[in-house]
């Protein structure tokens, strides 16, 4: 078992793949149909109707649709929680109920259905044990994941006391404990604040870059648009539209210029050039994305509040309040950013763009993936285990500072060099971003 876990993910995938027939797609449904009836066989509801989905390996695929369009039902059938009425549903070329397939899958359901009496660390440990991960690998991965979802400070509190957003983060962490090849996320951003949403989207992109496949199910269109390569829109259990996000949304007959502040004269000149091409031309200031604006505003507000809370935090009550703050990820994130950015100017200008995930994020994931190797080669591993409590206390402190500052660095982009740079891009903002990455 231990040896198996130490294999790199690619080889593990190949090994499990040998056991299955063949694997053309990461997710595939063939004529999938599901009808629900009441106990007496009457009043049939057609939830999924002859659905043919094909998600390629290493693709971020979005399953869209209004409530009751069959998204979640499809996912439940894929995972073996429901039986198809007709047709087939395949995950990584096999059945969703096959443990060999389950080993390579991560699933985060629409709500976090957690054991209320466990704390985050125990929760993740429990799920880790279901994968047969050795104790040390589990311990290492759990700390990494808790750090990643920002719950290290509350890792010993019962999950039952958590807010929806915090529970959601554990739900996400449990889906990643096995470093899955295929991640299935059902409404991953519900209940999360914008910063948490942003983190999840960055995570999805990072995972995709690392060769993972992600099946995303959502009706929050902004989220889907930002991260998905391909989407499928369901209605009444049928696919209404399917294709690459870029192709579906691109207005091929239009072009958009983005420039720095330019003079009226220059604008007139451009208009004249465009007029010669005999097409229409309109000029306006581009709008900032609300998400970017939000993150920046919250960061600024926190900075102003900081001196007050700093003064209070010297008293006993302040210490308690500070602890409360720590439990709130949003606050923690933003404060971390402020401490990092203290003394610098607030980011200005319309050119604030969501930055792609930094390499540091990769290092966290690398740690997750190769946790076993890291542990086995660490000479002082035994020593660490014996002083686990003091160590984790230290980690608590460290986690509050480091990763959160890192996240905010990414979220509030302070890159002055973008000023004055002129870019030519398609109207789809995603394209420009992809170019950056």
């Amino acid at each position, binding site marked *: 078992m231990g040896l198996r876990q130490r294999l790199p993910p690619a080889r593990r995938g190949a090994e499990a793949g040998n056991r299955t027939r063949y694997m053309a797609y990461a997710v595939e449904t063939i004529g999938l149909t599901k009808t629900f009836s009441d106990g007496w066989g009457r009043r049939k509801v057609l939830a999924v109707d002859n659905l043919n989905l094909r998600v390629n390996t290493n693709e971020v695929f979005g399953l869209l649709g209004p409530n009751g369009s069959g998204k979640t039902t499809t996912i*439940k059938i894929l*995972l*073996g*929680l*429901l*039986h198809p009425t007709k047709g087939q549903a395949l995950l990584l070329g096999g059945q*969703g109920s096959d*443990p*060999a397939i*389950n*080993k390579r*899958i991560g*699933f985060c*359901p629409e*709500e976090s*259905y*957690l*054991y209320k*009496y*466990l704390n985050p660390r*125990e929760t993740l440990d*429990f*799920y880790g*044990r*279901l*994968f*047969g991960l050795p104790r040390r690998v589990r311990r290492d991965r759990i700390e990494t994941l808790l750090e990643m979802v920002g719950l290290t400070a509350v890792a010993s509190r019962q999950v039952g006391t958590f807010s929806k957003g915090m529970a959601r983060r554990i*739900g996400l962490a*449990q*889906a990643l404990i*096995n470093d899955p090849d295929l991640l299935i996320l059902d409404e991953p951003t519900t209940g999360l604040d914008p910063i948490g949403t942003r983190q999840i989207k960055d995570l999805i992109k990072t995972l995709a870059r690392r060769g993972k496949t992600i099946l995303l199910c959502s009706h929050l269109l902004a989220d889907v648009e930002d991260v998905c390569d391909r989407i499928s829109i369901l209605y009444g259990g049928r696919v209404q539209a399917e294709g690459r996000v870029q192709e579906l949304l691109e207005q091929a007959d239009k072009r958009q210029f983005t420039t720095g502040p330019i003079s009226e004269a220059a604008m007139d000149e451009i208009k004249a050039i465009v007029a010669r091409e005999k097409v229409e031309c309109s000029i306006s200031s581009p709008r900032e994305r609300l998400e970017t604006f939000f993150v920046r505003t919250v960061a600024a507000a926190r900075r102003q509040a900081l001196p007050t809370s700093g003064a209070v935090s010297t008293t006993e009550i302040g210490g308690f309040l500070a602890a409360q703050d720590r439990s709130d990820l949003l606050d923690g994130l933003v404060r971390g950013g402020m401490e990092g950015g203290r003394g610098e100017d607030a980011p200005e200008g319309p050119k604030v763009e969501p930055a792609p995930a930094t390499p540091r994020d990769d290092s966290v994931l690398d740690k997750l993936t190769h946790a076993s190797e890291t542990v086995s080669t660490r000479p002082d591993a035994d020593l660490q285990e014996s002083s686990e409590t003091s160590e984790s206390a230290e980690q608590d402190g460290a986690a509050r500072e480091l990763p959160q500052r890192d996240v905010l660095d990414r979220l509030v982009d302070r890159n002055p060099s973008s000023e004055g740079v002129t870019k030519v891009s398609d109207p789809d903002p995603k394209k420009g971003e992809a170019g950056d990455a």
Partner: protein
Amino acid sequence: MHRVLAIASNTLKQAVRMKLALVFSLLLLILLPVMAFGVTGDGTLKGRLQTFVSYGIALVSLLLSLLTIFAAIHTTTSDITQRQVYTVLTKPIRRWEFLLGKFLGILTLNSVLLVLFGGIIYGVVMAAPRFYRDPVHHLPVSPAEAKELHDQFYTARARVLARPIVVTDEEIQAKYDRLHNNQMLDQFFPGASVRKLKERLRGIILSQKSSVIVGGQRLWEFDNIRPQDPNEDIFVRFKLDVATTPPDEQIYAKWAAGDFRRVRRGEETLLFERDLKHPIRTFRELALPSEVIADDGYLGVLFYNRPQLNQTVVMFSDGQRNKAADEHSFSILYRAGTFTGNYLRGLLVLFFRLFFLTALAIWAATFLSFPVAVLLALVLFCTVSISGFILESFTYMGKGLQQIYGGTIELVIQALPQFDKYSPANYLVDGRLIDWAMVNWASWTLIWAMLLMGLALAVFHYKELARDTS
């Protein structure tokens, strides 16, 4: 296996942290001392110990049974309705491993609590004689009392029933002929068939033979009495029932015990004889020296209904030939094991009960919601707990009903493991040996438990888990 253990330990955590186990344990911890110090029984230490053990074991058994039913059903149904199964069963775990983990978790909880509370009761019982002071004179246990405790409570005694009463066809025929000749048959039993008549006559002869008229006597013969220690007394256990209650509610008896085969042949033999008086309608024990047993394990016991002192027929309950009456039959008891060994076997019986109940509860939880599953499990638990009573009640039913129930429910109840067949409390109170025949019952219980778990696994395997959101 590590997956099963992960589920099991999580189940255990759930029971502990949801305070279910805690509440049950507190209840026991409050109620046990109440019984230890509050219940006096007949005032003697032996009486107190008997009530304590009887109530204590019964209470532990009942509370742990209820705990099992609630905890096992809750842990299974809540995972389905609160949808933890969505994340758990999409991990590389098979559904049977999940259910088996639940089973093991609950069983572990039960075992720990059983050992804990069984240990507490055992400790109290074993320490009692050393700390006991009688409430009136504050004296410690007297040597006579200590001997009685040693012989009748701190022991595990085997039980031997007397040779059954034989009613021959000739006897029935003779009686039939006599009544027939006197033209009395139609008078007493009008319109009955010959077969029915003979059946009733057999009953009449049987009760005649099992009771003793004033001035009459009755001999019980026993075989295979082999006490471990020839220096220890053996005991005759009996209950005296009477046709009319004497004013002092006592019966004056003359007892004789020895090798009555030699007496019949006119040979000399050692006879034990005593004149005693006994209260009626309660179980009594008469101590006999074990020298009176013949070398081949034979013993005859004679009861003489003394004519000057008694005015009533004395009846013994070994005339009826059914299982329920066996418990009350005239019998010989002798030490065949230690109290501790017996106590452990008693706890083992309780363990098998809980094993069965865990399987029953999980089976019910796989296809029913929490309240319905609890109801079903409780009904079945009550049924197996009083199966003897239910089965007996069938015999009093009208003909039509009996035919309907006899073929269905009666068969099911007879097939189920009957908890009241081996009630450890009853055995321990009488200091009676829980013999290894219990193993038969235990294996039958285990087979049932496995059958139920098998059914549960089958149901759960094909269940659409995302469907049940009630």
